[in-house]
C-alpha cells in the first residue's frame, strides 16, 4: 500500500512537472523528483549526523544520579 502511494507520487511529480503546473523560486527545485530525493536523503543524513554527534555528547542516562552518588 505504502509502496503504491510512493510510486504514484513519483509518477505524478513527473507529469505535473511536464505540464508546468509547478511554480518554484529556485532552479534546483525543478530537478525531477527533487523533493523525494531531498526527503529520503535528508532524513537518512539527519539520522546519521545525529548518531555521529552522539559519540561525543551523549553520556549515560543516570548522569545526575551518578554525580550525586559520587559526591
Amino acid at each position: 500500500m505504502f509502496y503504491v502511494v510512493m510510486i504514484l507520487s513519483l509518477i505524478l511529480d513527473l507529469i505535473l512537472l511536464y505540464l508546468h503546473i509547478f511554480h518554484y523560486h529556485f532552479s534546483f527545485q525543478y530537478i525531477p523528483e527533487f523533493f523525494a530525493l531531498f526527503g529520503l536523503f535528508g532524513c537518512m543524513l539527519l539520522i546519521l549526523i545525529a548518531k555521529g554527534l552522539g559519540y561525543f555528547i551523549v553520556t549515560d542516562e543516570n548522569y545526575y544520579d551518578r554525580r550525586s552518588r559520587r559526591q
Partner: protein
Amino acid sequence: MVEWIHPGLIIFLGGFLIPFIKPKKLKQAYFLLLPIAGLIILIFTSLGAFGAIPSWPESLHKFNIPFLKYTLTVARINKLSMLFAYVYVIAAFCMNLYALRAKSDWEHVAAMIYVGSALGAIFAGDFFTLFFFLEIMSWAPFFLLLFRGTKRSMGAAIRYILWHHFSGVCVLAGILMHVHQTGSIEFTHMPWGWGGQYLGYYLMLLGFIVNAATAPFHSWLADTYSEASPSGSIYMTAYTTKTAVFCLIITFSGTELLMWMGTITALFAVIMAVLETDGRRMLSYHIISQVGYMVAGTGIGTAMAINGAAAHAFCHIIYKALLYMGAGCPLLVVGTAKFNKLGGLYKYMPFSFWLTIIGGLSISGSPIFSGFISKTMTIEAAELIHRPIIFLMLEGASIGTFLSTTLKLPWNIWLQGKPEPPTEIRNKLKDSAVNTPLHMLIAMGILAFLCLLLGVYPNVLYQMLPYPVEFVPYTATRVFSIIQLFIFTFLGFWILRKMLHGHQTYTLDTDWFVRIPGTWFLRFCKGPLISLGTMLDRNILNLTHSIVASIRNPRLESTMTPRAIGLGIFIILALFSLFLVTKI
C-alpha cells in the same frame, strides 16, 4: 470611564486567591475562569470598547505613569501584542483545564503568575515595564520546577534560574546603555551595526536569544522543561520563548545575524531530537527548532517574514501544548515517558494517541493542519529574498520534525508493534480504553480542534496578523512538494528505523562545553591547584620564619626604649611630610 483593564494583572493578582478558596469545585471553576476573564477583556479591546486599535505599527497607549524623569507606558496595545495575548489566554485556558487536578495549589499560583507576567511583558510599552515583567516571568517556572519536589527537578530549577539571571542581567545592561545613549525608554526598534557603540544592543540581543533558546544558548530548555511536573511543564512550553520572540520582533527585526542563527537552530535542534529517547526531552528540542523558525523569520524582517514569525508563534503555542500534553499522559498515568519503558499503550489510551498525531502533523507542517499555514510563510519569505541555503535548511528541519514528532514519538510511546504494554506498565492501567482523565482529553481536544480550524480556515489567523496578508498557503506546488517530502522521509525512517532504537542516554548538547571541561577544571582546582597552593603557603611561611629568626637581635630588643621608638616614628613622619610637601 475605565481606561483599560489589564488582562495580565487580572490573571496575575487573581492567581494569588486560588489557595484561599476552600470548596474544591469553586476553586476549579475560579481557576478556569481567570483566563476566560482575560479573553473577554481582549475581545472587548478588539471590538474597540477602549478605543480603536490602529493598524500596525501604530499602537494605543494606556496607563502612562510618570516615573523619575520618564513616563512608563504600562499598556501598549497594537495588532502584534493582541495576537500574542489572544493565544496566551486561549492556551492558558486549555492548560488550566489539563492541570485542573494538580496536587499543589501553589503550582496553580505559579502558573497564573507566569501567564499574567507574560501578558504584562507583551503589553509593555517601555523598557522598564518590560524588564519588570520579564524578571517575574523568569521566577515563575523556577517554582513550577520546584513544586515537583524531586531532587532532579530542584537541580533543574537552580540551573534554570542561573540561565535566566544571566539573560536578565544582559537585557538590563543593554537597556541601561541604550537609555544612557539616547535618553529614551521606549520599547521599540533598536539600531544595529558593528562596532563598540553598539555594545548595549549586543547585550540586549544576547539576553533575548538566551530566552528564545537560540543555538548555542539553547541547552537550558531541553535540560529543564522535561523535569517539571506533567502539568507544570505545559505552561513552560508556551510563554518564555514566545515572549522572547515577541521582544526580538519589536527590537531587532531585519537583523541578518538572527536569520542565520534561527535557521541553524531550527536544523541543529532536530538533529539533537533524533538522539533523544525521552518523550518530553525530544519535544523540548522541537520547541527550540520551531522557535528557530520564528527567529529566522524575525531576522529576514520583510512584512511576510514578520507575519510568518508571528503566525508561527500563534500556531506553535497551540500544537506544542497539545504534544506536551500527549507525552504528559503516559507520564501522569504510568509514571514515565521514556521510550524503552513504553510501547503498546494504544489499547488503553487511544484518544491521546490520535490527539498527539494531530499535534505531530501540525508541527511538521502537513496540509490542513496549523503548522502548514504559518511555517510555509516563513519559508516563502526566505525564497522571496533569494536565499536558497536558508530555504534548504528550513525544509531540512521540516523533515526532521516530521521524522521525530509524527513518526518516532507516537510509535515509541503507543505502538512499537506490541499489542500490550510491558508488564510493570500494564499493572498500573485500568482495563478500559480511557485511562487518561477526562478533563485532560477535553483540553487536548480543544487544542486539536484549533489546530485543524487554523489549518482549514487560515483567514481566522491571517486577519489578526500585523501586516496585511497577501499569501495563499494552499497551492498545488506547495501541497504536492510537502506531501512527497514526507512520504520519502517515511521511507528513510523505515530503512534506518533500527538505528533509532538505542539504549537510554542523556544528551549533554552544548552543555558539554560547560560540564565536561568544567568538571576537568574543578578536578584541576581540587587536585593540582590546591596542592600547589599548600606547597607555596608552606614554603613562604618557612621562608619568613627563617628571615625573622635570622634578623631577630636579642640585644637590640632589650635596649629598645620608648624614646628610641618615638624618635624612629618622628623621623618616618618627617620624611613622609617632606614627601607630601614636595609633591604638592
